[in-house]
């Protein structure tokens, strides 16, 4: 069976969300909520409401990065100081905690930020090839509802789009 990816572009956001709600309500047989994704010009908190909670693992990366930065930072500094005994004393100990706290703090933030960035790139699937199905209008003011479906639900899905006043439908054959 052929697999399709179709996108309906809407300028009326409320109607677009109704499409998703209809799919959620089982109006198109064979389409689940997991098959739906959206493309939007802005960050819509409403999308989460209609699509349901989908996970975002970025905070886990952040926590890992911060903990790594903290541990690595302190141990790095302390071991550098401990092997570098011909160093200025100024009456201070070889491993001075106050200054190491300052630097550990900076390392915590630096690695936290870098890991967050990595987490974003990985979990948002950035740097992947742009699929053929994309519209520049998403960058302006239209919202795209993207459905992954097979031949069986192809026509009903298009009909659903049309009933909600879709402006344009784009499609590609996945396989």
């Amino acid at each position, binding site marked *: 069976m052929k697999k399709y990816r179709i996108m309906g572009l809407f300028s009326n956001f409320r109607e677009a969300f109704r499409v998703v709600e209809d799919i959620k309500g089982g109006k198109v047989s064979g389409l689940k909520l997991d098959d739906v994704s959206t493309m939007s010009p802005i*960050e819509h908190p409403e999308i989460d409401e209609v699509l349901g909670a989908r996970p975002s693992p970025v905070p886990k990366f952040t926590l890992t990065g911060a903990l790594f930065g903290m541990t690595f930072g302190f141990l790095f500094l302390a071991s550098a100081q401990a092997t570098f005994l011909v160093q200025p004393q100024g009456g201070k100990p070889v491993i001075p905690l106050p200054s190491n706290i300052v630097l550990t703090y900076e390392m915590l933030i630096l690695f936290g930020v870098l890991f967050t960035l990595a987490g974003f790139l990985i979990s*948002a699937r950035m740097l992947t090839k742009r699929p053929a199905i*994309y519209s520049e209008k998403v*960058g302006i*003011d239209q919202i795209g509802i*993207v459905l992954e479906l097979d031949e069986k639900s192809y026509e009903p899905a298009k009909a659903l789009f049309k009933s909600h006043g879709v402006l344009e439908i784009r499609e590609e054959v996945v396989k």
Partner: protein
Amino acid sequence: MKDINEDIKWAQINADVLRSMETPRLGYWIAVATCVAMIACAVVAEIYQYKHGMGYGLLNWPHMWDIYIATFIFWIGMSHSGTLLSAILHIIHADWRKPIYRFAEAMTTFSLMTAGLFPIIHIGRLWNMYWVLPYVTDRGIWPNFRSPLVWDAFAISTYLTSSALFLYIGMIPDLAICRDNARGWRKKLYIALSLGWRGDDRQWRNFRRTYLLMACFLIPLAVSVHSIVSSDFAMSIMPGWHVTTFPPYFVAGALYSGCAAIITLFVLLRYFFRFEEYMTIAILEKTCKLTFAIAMAWTYLNLIEFASTWYGHDVASKEVLLQKFYGPYAPFFWMMMFCGSVVPFTLAIRKFRRHIPTMFVVSLLLNLGMWLERWMIVTPTLANAYHPIAWDTMWPGMVQWAIVFGSFGWFGLLFLVFVKIFPSVSMYEVKEMVYHRRGHAGKDTEEVLHRPVEGVRATTGRPGLEGA
């Protein structure tokens, strides 16, 4: 009065912002040439200093530091309000930040890049600058992690990395818009920079989390950076430097000068790019009120520093304070007090606050005051420290002035390049702002937003960014 015209068409937002990035006109090139000329002054001075030694800036014993370090703090300070305010306002959901945060964050990054030059310029053997970095060598030599200067190196590189990433990540959706509307080399650039942004829900979801987490990191980071810069002084033993209140005082001063710089750039961008729709008087007013509040916090911290020095009655510190009041540097000190504590009262008056030319002049005066403040932190202490035989008055030489002057050109050049390559108003966030403000207003929301815009091609709304 509304912060922004809520009936603005979204295609119009794209069109206006993309228009600001079009091939520049003559005025722009004149500005670039001016900046390059200013940089040239600094480069000539620096080459001279590099070849012949630090003495030609009239640095001397005991004035080992002077306006290089003062300007360094000035630029670091200016870098603070962009990112810090953007992050704080983001976390507290103050959405009026949205039209103005982009250039403010760019200002952060560029003033950090300017500030970062000064420690390099001011050291005696700058070809050995990299010794400050902790790299592994077979000689087993490390930098001295006790030194506040090494903390500076850590803090500034962390801050530069983080704030540049914060700026960049916040810009990705806009870069995707640019990508969709560009041709030529610009297209290639934006394809690379937008990292394949499509605006799908997965991306937005992770984007939102990432942006919030970055904001959470940047607030304590920004505070720590200027505290660490203040440690250059507070950690020393010198009277007038060894002050417990320096970290908050520096942070307040940083926010202060940064806010003033935001107002300056706000006025310039509004005027030159005709951003009246986005950089509205209402937002200017909010920024001015914030600046006024920060100015008063700064004034308080300033006065409390004098009061505690006076009350503490430490002979040396008191002498430094008195020398600030009526010593050789007193005119500058009082000018700083005037610019920093008296001038901001114009921000409290509605009539002035709404008058753009006044605000432009005021913001420049505030920043003049803040530059003088940094100078008045560094120099009077060196002039009147513990040992009376080393008391000395020194006026910086031409070499120093030329380099300080050139740093403004460098900042200006970076900023000029930025506004032509990157969108200086956040398109997607202005849309969000408009959307949420209208959000529950009425059924016609969408219809109003999407009406076709005159003079913009209906298909893509692109004015077209030519990449020659």
